[in-house]
């Protein structure tokens, strides 16, 4: 990276993507902001290669994911020494999102905000491994094969974690969804 103008171009293009992923991975505004700053400082320090720049978004996602992994490791150590409390961090997910101004009806807007808050809290309650996969697929829009490549894990593991994440989310959200009544499957194995 050679000039401020070049940096600004990359920064303006990807800053929202980086912040969105950091926010959804951490589910904590303060941590997401720290991570956001660290990601961009790493970009300045470690982006000399022209080759990477052509395909910058996956590289940036990897930086965010690596930083998140480091952060979790540090947290685990702190928790081990009782310096941190898990409950306190995880469900701090604030409603700091941009309000949806496309809806004119305040009731509808409030309802949608409540729905999104419930979804956000359910995502926050997912185990880290499932949340990472779910966020990459559903929020970043990556294909399962791309996620497997990005995280260096088998495609089958990605599918399995995604399936578990969706099941868990559905269970969590069932209370808020009128159609979410629990059904018993009476056809465990159906011949086709």
């Amino acid at each position, binding site marked *: 990276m050679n000039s401020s103008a070049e940096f600004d171009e990359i920064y303006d293009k990807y800053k929202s993507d980086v912040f969105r992923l950091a926010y959804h991975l951490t589910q904590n505004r303060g941590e997401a902001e720290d991570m*956001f700053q660290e990601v961009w400082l790493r*970009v300045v320090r470690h982006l000399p290669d022209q080759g990477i720049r052509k395909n910058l978004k996956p590289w940036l996602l990897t930086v965010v994911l690596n930083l998140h992994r480091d952060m979790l490791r540090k947290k685990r150590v702190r928790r081990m020494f009782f310096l941190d409390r898990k409950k306190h961090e995880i469900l701090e997910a604030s409603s700091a999102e941009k309000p949806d101004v496309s809806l004119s009806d305040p009731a509808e807007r409030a309802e949608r905000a409540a*729905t999104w808050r419930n979804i956000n809290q359910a995502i926050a309650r997912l185990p880290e491994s499932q949340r990472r996969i779910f966020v990459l697929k559903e929020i970043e829009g990556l294909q399962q094969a791309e996620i497997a490549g990005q995280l260096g894990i088998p495609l089958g593991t990605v*599918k399995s974690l995604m399936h578990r994440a969706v099941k868990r989310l*559905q269970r969590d959200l069932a209370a808020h969804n009128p159609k979410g009544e629990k059904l018993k*499957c009476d056809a465990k194995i*159906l011949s*086709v």
Partner: protein
Amino acid sequence: MRCQDIERLILDAGERELSPEERLALEQHLAQCPACASHRDLWKDLHLSLQKAPSPALSPELEERVRLACHEELNSRLQRQTRRERSTPSPPVPWPIWAALAALTVLTAGFLIPGLEEFLQKQSFSLRTVLALILILQNALALFFVPIISRRRYVSQPALGQVE
């Protein structure tokens, strides 16, 4: 197919074209299994809600603070790089030092080996051997410091082109 397989197929259907057999199996299963049909509906709702979800807002203060921090980092990197490019390469070691080193090696071989043989036989050093060893050690130390001293002198006297 088991319900679990069908649920995975529902997730897969969002990102790839299912084969005719898979589609048929899915449709048949969903027609008979209310739990999987409910799973599909809930998944659709969740997927749609996520697509409409608002993005977390990036505060303008944070955006500007990070931009400034990165510009600062970038400038200091560029300054360091320029300084490195301007700095002159270290001077080569002068040829008399190489010659002296070669002579020392020969002297060491010439005096030290007979001295050691003598020590092994008599279990003591003669005065001649001790003097030779001291001389070799002194010269070796002097030669070790010559390149360092000459380089320090070179660095402390800037090149003519750099003097402003």
